[in-house]
Structure formats: structure tokens, C-alpha cells
């Protein structure tokens, strides 16, 4: 960081470590700005961040009760819902966060040090932390209220949630880049996502699907991420469909597509 002298521009360091430090500094500053903005002047302001995912979980639980559905796996209903919804929340919230980058950065593009990539990484990190907090809240409530707690292989669960998050990040980034040239890109991205809530294994497991249906739904990379997370969370579930390579290939493909679009825009 340069020392402050009016009217003098700090020389830009050529050292790679220094430049990396500068990038990290900008990303953290943007993340801090995002968090402070959501907080406003009251800590309760940030609570709204968790209202939507908590409402999803509550509505799903009520839906299970109304339709008399119970967990298809040997576990309690809330834990089953959490195992599917947490990776889904990771996927959706990062898409929404990255989708706000273009408008959020509009006033900041005058800073040469702040780029679209900084904004994207910052938004994605904030959402990743938020998902962790949502998990702690709902899993904690489940333990406190119902006395239920289940986390078979934490790292496996984390991998599934992280895959879902990375899928959302790459998808959101592609459409965020596209939105810089086509105003309809963001609404299109939201429309395309609508069925994902119903076809990504949030309410059901891959194992209970007929083979024909599974052959089709397994084309959805988010289903694999959800199944990996569920596999990691539940003691009595071992997915027959979960593959990390498939969503990873999607993530690579989406990021590559975003990079190509970005280079075309620069030309």
C-alpha cells in the first residue's frame, strides 16, 4: 500500500507478490463494501441475507408435511432437506451475487485498480461465506429444536457444496460478461435457471429415480454436486450417480466460454 501524498501517484510495483497482494486487497475491500452495505447501520440489516434461503428451507419442510413426503433416506426430514438445499443455495446465491457485479461496479470503474474480475471474485467469496453461515444456522436450529445432527464426511459435503458454488460462479460469470454486451443476458440466465430447483435433486435423491429418468436428469451438473454433498452429509446414503468430473467439466467449459466472450469484447 502506498503512503498518502496529495498529487502524487503511487508507482505500480512490478513484483508479482506485491501485485498479488494488491489484487487481494482490492477483493477484500470490495467484499467489505458489500458486507457493510448490506449491514447498513444495523446488524439486523444483514439478517435479510439469510431470510431467503431460510424461507426456502421452511417452505420445503412445510411442503413435505403437506404432501406427506418423508425422507427417502434413513434420516430426519430436516436433515434431508438441508443436504439438498444447502448446495442449491450455494449455487443460486452466487449466481445472484455475481449478477449484481455489473451494476455494483458501475460507479467504481473509474478506479483502474478495480476490475470486473475483482468484483466477481469478491461477490463469490461473500456468498460462499454466507452459505456457510446459513448451514450453521439451519443445522444448529435442527439440533436445538429437533435434536438431530448428521454430518458423515464433512470434507465430502464441503466438496459438493463447493462444486455447486463453483458451478454457480462460472454460470453467473458467463452471463455477467454477456450482459455487458446484451442487456437481455441477465433475465435469460434467470429464466434458464427456473427448472433447476425441481430437477437438481433437492427434493429427491438420484438413487430413487428410474434409470430412464436418471439418464436425462444426470445431464444436469448441479444434480451431481447436490448428490456429492448429500453423500457427504448423510450416514445412510451413497449416491450411484455422483461424479465430480462432470460438474468440473461444466465449470471449465463455462469459464472458457466467458473468457472467449471477454476477449471478443476487448477486441
Amino acid at each position, binding site marked *: 500500500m502506498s503512503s*498518502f501524498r496529495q498529487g502524487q501517484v503511487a508507482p505500480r510495483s512490478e513484483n508479482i507478490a506485491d501485485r498479488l497482494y494488491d489484487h487481494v486487497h482490492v477483493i477484500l475491500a470490495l467484499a467489505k463494501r458489500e458486507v*457493510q452495505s448490506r449491514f447498513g447501520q444495523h446488524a439486523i440489516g444483514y439478517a435479510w441475507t439469510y431470510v431467503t434461503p431460510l424461507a426456502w428451507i421452511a417452505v420445503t419442510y412445510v411442503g413435505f408435511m403437506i404432501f406427506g413426503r418423508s425422507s427417502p433416506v434413513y434420516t430426519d426430514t430436516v436433515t434431508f432437506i438441508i443436504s439438498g438445499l444447502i448446495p442449491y443455495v450455494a449455487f443460486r446465491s452466487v449466481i445472484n451475487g455475481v449478477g449484481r457485479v455489473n451494476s455494483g461496479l458501475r460507479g467504481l470503474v473509474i478506479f483502474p485498480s478495480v476490475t470486473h474480475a475483482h468484483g466477481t471474485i469478491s461477490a463469490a467469496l461473500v456468498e460462499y461465506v454466507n452459505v456457510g453461515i446459513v448451514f450453521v444456522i439451519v443445522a444448529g436450529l435442527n439440533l436445538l429444536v429437533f435434536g438431530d445432527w448428521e454430518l458423515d464426511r464433512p470434507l465430502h459435503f464441503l466438496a459438493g457444496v463447493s462444486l455447486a458454488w463453483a458451478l454457480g460462479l462460472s454460470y453467473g460469470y458467463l452471463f455477467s460478461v454477456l450482459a455487458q454486451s446484451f442487456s437481455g443476458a441477465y433475465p435469460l440466465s434467470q429464466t434458464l435457471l427456473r427448472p433447476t430447483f425441481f430437477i437438481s435433486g433437492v427434493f429427491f435423491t438420484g438413487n430413487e429415480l428410474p434409470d430412464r429418468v436418471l439418464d436425462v436428469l444426470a445431464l444436469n451438473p448441479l444434480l451431481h454436486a447436490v448428490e456429492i454433498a448429500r453423500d457427504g452429509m448423510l450416514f445412510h446414503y451413497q449416491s450411484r450417480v455422483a461424479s465430480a468430473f462432470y460438474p468440473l467439466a461444466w465449470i471449465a467449459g463455462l469459464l472458457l466460454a466467458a473468457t472467449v466472450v471477454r476477449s471478443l469484447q476487448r477486441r
Partner: protein
Amino acid sequence: MWGFVNCTRYYQSFGAPKVVLHEANLAVRTDERFGLLVRAGEGKSTIVRLLAGVDRPDEGHVLRDEGGWPLGYPGAFQAQLTGEENIVNIAEMVGLEPLSYSAFCADFSELGEAYFSPLTLYTGRMRAQLAFAASFGMPATTYLADEKLVAGDDAFKRKCASALKSRLDRAGLILVASNPKATKDFCDRHAVLVNGKIILCGDHDEAAELFAASASDPQSDDVGEDELASFDLA
């Protein structure tokens, strides 16, 4: 270097396209004091936004230097944050030492305790004072100004003018204004926007003359052809 290369920018106004720039060219050195006269409603803010990178041209390229800073620019502020939080955040993004920069802005803006209140509670004048403080505290190499070079009450205006003169010893200025008097005091080189083209003029008087001629009959193509022929197309 600042400027435009074959730059075209238009926007829709009441369903009809309004041309701000049409294949316009301009080159301004980083340390130059350049005044561009643009009639009110003809795209002053759009031109500054293009130079600042906030807006993009429909065609062509915008030349931008790294050390540019729009004077009195409030666009980087978040209304939910306090003045102090905004300033510290800007310092962190730009790579300045936050405490020193914040101390300068708190002192220059003369906001007192309001500096620690959220911007949602600020009046327009308070926001402008904070924005000008942020600008003058920024180590800019070129200031970009949309008409206003000063803000606030008379005392604060004098303070801004003094600070600007001091900064311009080392920094450049691109002032886009609709009032020829504004460019007279602070600019060394002058130009006028006519029919989407930037016309370079020999001095301020020449610019003011061309500006008056184009303003008296804004729809006349005569201004764009015969009269422009005697001026230097940038």
C-alpha cells in the same frame, strides 16, 4: 493521453436518437488543461462519463490514462455507508493509506460529526463537499470535470478553487462546460462540440465565438460546414 478515436455515442431521447459524438477524435495530454464547450443538454455528462470509463461508446475507442479522477464524483459512494466508511473503502480499493486519506477528507469536507453518519442523512451539499474532498485527496494525474469545479457555500467554493489551482501545478484538467467563462480561467487549450464533432480552437475567444455561433442556431448545418471549415478538426 486522453481522448477519442472515431468515437460515436448516441442515446434515445423521446424515441429519437440524440447524437453526442459522431466519429469524433480528440487527443489531450495527461498534464494539459483542456476546456471543451458543449451546449446544455448536448451530452456534457456523457462525455465525462465516457472519459471516466463509466459509459462506453457505440463505436470507436476512448483513450484513458490510469490517473484520471472525475472532480466531485459521488458515484463511488454507497449511501448506506458513513462518510468515513466510504472514504476508507475508496482508499483501500485505490491503494492509499486509509487513515491519512480519511483524515484529509474529514478535514477538507468540513462535515464535522456528520462525517461519521451514513450518506442517506446527507444533503446534496454535504455529499458534494465529501465528493470534492475525496477528489482533492486523490493523487490524480488528470481531473475530469463536468461543469462544476467547486461546490458548497462561498467559503467552501474558494477553498475548492484554491485546492484545484494547487493540484493543477502537477495534474491536468479536462473541463467539459456549457459556460465559456468556466473554461477561461482554468484551461490552456480549448475546443467546442458541434454536431457531434470536437472542433479545436486557437484560444478561448475563438472557442467562445464558435460556441456562440453554434448556440445561436443549433439546428443549422451551415455551422457544421462553412464555419467549421475555418477551424481545426481535432
